[in-house]
């Protein structure tokens, strides 16, 4: 090609990139699908480009193409990837190996999984540098320690001696950033680096990454589904959908004046107007002074927790990971018998242990989980999955059962056509809907929703929340809604319990809990939720009253 000569200052120039994969649908012949349709982008030295979109938009696939890497059999079938002026796709395997870890480095979504559990952190951080021979071991370690300091990791001199499991998730994510920076690359691909973190930890990691990018003048592709996050770190934003470019512009333009409808939908705040219901006269389920620990250990995961749930209302339990939210659900359902305290249901105490509860009590409390795909038997059809509680609790069989299943499918806004589908054939949102229908089939008084929208794209999650609210009005079912996401809480809750290290630190009606004055932890939680505002990050860090626990 004539114009493969790069412009000065241009680091990455992707032209008409086309990426394909072979899929093996059940019962059909394998077929080729196109994941990325002729996407082009350019990135100048030292700049940050945010790639944003829902899952399946092709963001990670495009990001990894800058390293010539295709995850799980994905193939780059067309276009050019010019890095520092040369087409890396022509370099072959040897060429890829030379640039990976040298010119381009990668920061993965879950550092906890991306670090090898068998090796010390330092050995992994300097590995790429030593492999490409850009520094001696002593130099590389000195550089790594300086980076640990820059990323404000505790004990920068000795943290490298630790193993991945000895370091918290937020710290690991920063060590991974140090690992990427250690070989002094020209480009770093950040693939959802803060998505797996608690909101209070995310803000620290985000600030650390932003400072590190600024001080080392490295360029970055920042991949995320969270527009508010990407607005804090990037110079430009590219919106992708179904492997196609939707819109590409400066950060301010994208979040303030989006030109495409889809971008607008992403940018607009998805708060559902939900009028708070006043608590009724008597709660039907009361948790009184419950204390619980795992395996008879001395560490109490729940400390003297008391909450009430009223018929047809939603209690939201918020807090970061390890605060005891899910343990509270386990104590209520009897999966983890409390050491002290009681759970009363309809005025009578529930047996502590699941095994001691009659079937009727089991029916009244149902659960929906975060990971819908592992909560269903992959070898059963949707009809069997939803029909099972009908048979188990009510003994409904045959035609009557099928009729009821069809009604339930209707309630979750899925047609009868799904009866014979298997979970693997459904999208993430559809799977979660099937789980909702399954729990509704038991006609429970309470459904415990454990982070049910956390694994879903924002627009899909929004649909699920609306569905849950509609169902609550029709079926008069109450929810115990466990989440770490405050926007979700605002949309769905009637009352809120804020949990921190096993204790309920703030509890009451939604309006009361979300009105100042706040206690220190609730303040931290509220102020850590990213806002779609340029400069929010700096403001939030300045205004904080307490450090997050993940640090």
């Amino acid at each position, binding site marked *: 090609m004539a114009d493969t000569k790069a412009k000065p200052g241009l680091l990455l120039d992707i032209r008409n990139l086309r990426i394909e994969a072979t899929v093996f649908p059940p019962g059909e012949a394998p077929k080729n699908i196109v994941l990325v349709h002729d996407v082009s982008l350019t990135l100048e030295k030292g700049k940050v480009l945010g790639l944003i979109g829902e899952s399946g938009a092709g963001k990670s696939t495009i990001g990894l193409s800058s390293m010539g*890497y295709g995850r799980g059999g994905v193939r780059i079938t067309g276009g050019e990837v010019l890095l520092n002026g040369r087409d890396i796709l022509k370099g072959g395997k040897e060429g890829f*190996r030379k640039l*990976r870890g040298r010119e381009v480095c990668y920061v993965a979504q879950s550092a906890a999984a*991306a*670090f090898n559990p068998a*090796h010390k952190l330092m050995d992994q951080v300097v*590995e790429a540098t030593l492999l490409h021979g850009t520094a001696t071991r002593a130099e590389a370690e000195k550089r790594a320690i300086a980076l640990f300091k820059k990323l404000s990791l505790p004990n920068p001199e000795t943290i490298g001696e630790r*193993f991945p*499991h000895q370091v918290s998730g937020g710290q690991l994510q920063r060590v991974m950033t140090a690992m990427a920076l250690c070989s002094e690359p020209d480009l770093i691909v950040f693939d959802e680096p803060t998505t797996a973190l608690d909101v209070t930890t995310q803000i620290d990691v985000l600030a650390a990454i932003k400072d590190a990018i600024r001080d080392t003048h490295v360029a970055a592709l920042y991949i995320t589904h969270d527009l508010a996050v990407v607005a804090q770190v990037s110079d430009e934003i590219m919106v992708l959908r179904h492997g196609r470019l939707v819109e590409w512009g400066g950060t301010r333009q994208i979040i303030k004046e989006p030109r495409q409808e889809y971008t607008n939908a992403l940018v607009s705040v998805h708060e559902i107007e939900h009028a708070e219901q006043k608590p009724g006269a008597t709660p039907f389920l009361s948790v009184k002074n419950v204390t619980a620990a795992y395996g008879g250990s001395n560490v109490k995961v729940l400390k003297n927790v008391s909450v009430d749930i009223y018929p047809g209302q939603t209690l939201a339990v918020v807090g970061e990971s390890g605060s005891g939210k899910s343990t509270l659900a386990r104590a209520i359902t009897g999966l983890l018998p409390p050491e002290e305290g009681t759970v009363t249901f309809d005025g009578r105490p529930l047996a502590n242990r699941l095994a001691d509860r009659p079937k009727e009590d089991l029916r009244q409390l149902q659960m929906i989980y975060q990971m819908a795909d592992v909560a269903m038997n992959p070898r059963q059809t949707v009809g069997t999955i939803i029909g099972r509680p009908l048979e188990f609790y009510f003994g409904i069989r045959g035609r009557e059962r099928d009729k009821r299943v069809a009604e339930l499918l209707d309630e979750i806004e899925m047609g009868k056509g799904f009866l014979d589908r298997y979970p693997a054939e459904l999208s993430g949102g559809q799977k979660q809907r099937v789980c909702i229908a399954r729990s509704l089939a038991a006609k429970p008084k309470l459904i415990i929703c454990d982070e049910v929208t956390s694994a879903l794209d924002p627009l899909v999650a929004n649909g699920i929340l609306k569905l849950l609210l509609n169902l609550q009005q029709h079926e008069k079912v109450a929810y115990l809604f466990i989440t770490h996401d405050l926007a979700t809480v605002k949309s769905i809750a009637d009352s809120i319990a804020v949990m921190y290290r096993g204790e309920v630190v703030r509890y009451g009606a939604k309006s009361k809990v979300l009105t100042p004055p706040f206690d220190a932890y609730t303040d931290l939680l509220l102020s850590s939720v990213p806002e779609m505002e340029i400069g929010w990050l700096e403001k939030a860090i300045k205004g904080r009253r307490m450090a997050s626990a993940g640090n």
Partner: protein
Amino acid sequence: MSSPIVKLIAQRIALGIVLLLAVSVLIFAGTQILPGDVAQAILGQSATPESLANLREQLGLNQPAYIRYFHWLGGALTGDLGTAMSSGQDIATSIKGRLWNTLFLAFWAAVVAVPLAIILGLIAVRYRNGWVDKLISGLALASTSFPEFFIGYVLVFFFAVKYQWFPAISTVYDGMPFGERMQAIALPAGALTLVVLAHMMRMTRAAILNVMQSAYVETAELKGLSAFNVIRKHAFPNAIAPIINVVMLNLAYLIVGVVVVEVIFVYPGMGQYLVDHVTKRDVPVVQAVGLIFAAVYISLNIIADIGAIVANPRLRHPK
């Protein structure tokens, strides 16, 4: 090394001892419920009731079973395994030389088989689903599928009869020079290697392939490591626990399962000894050999467990 790991290891060892005691009870009980007793076996069918009673008195067979059990166990723990009925020789003395021979054979078979299996496993993973992988897997599977006597005779046919590189009969004796001894065991060791190779190799392959799905393997690839170094440095250390397990199982087989191979090559090891005395219904010898085999089996499995515990960085370096 810190307290949780020491505690876990102590638990394993204690469990192993309990297990061994339980097995000793089973061995003793098993030989007791066989029809006839030692006195009957010694005197044969023509024995008079008086002579039987006398001999029983003499051998202490009139005492209750549990007393005889503790007597036997006490002896075994202090190295006294009793006397063989058929020959009247002390069992411990005759076993010592044979156990040494069996261990010698097993050791050299393992020295070849274990590294070979692991290296072949690593190569199979490196070229997974390609022809190299299929060739390795196919040959290994074939060598395991043939019965060991068949492999033994094939080896004898080619290397002893046709080319005459090694002797067909593995006679060894005390004070035999090392080189000659090695030459004598070459064929049985080769046969054993072929028998155990595939199991270990396929387990290595499967265990590493399982780890190859991990995110940290992708991280290593994205650092620019070559495919073989990714496997060696990042996948293998995390696949060690299942590999140790299968290696130990096969080592145990090399010691306690070599009966057929020893018989084919007329090798004076434990297996031959056991077979000889089973045919003679020499109960004390069968008990003694059974106990030793059980001890070997249980110890190797304890080593496998301890290896898996030590290989786990979470246990080695607690928070």
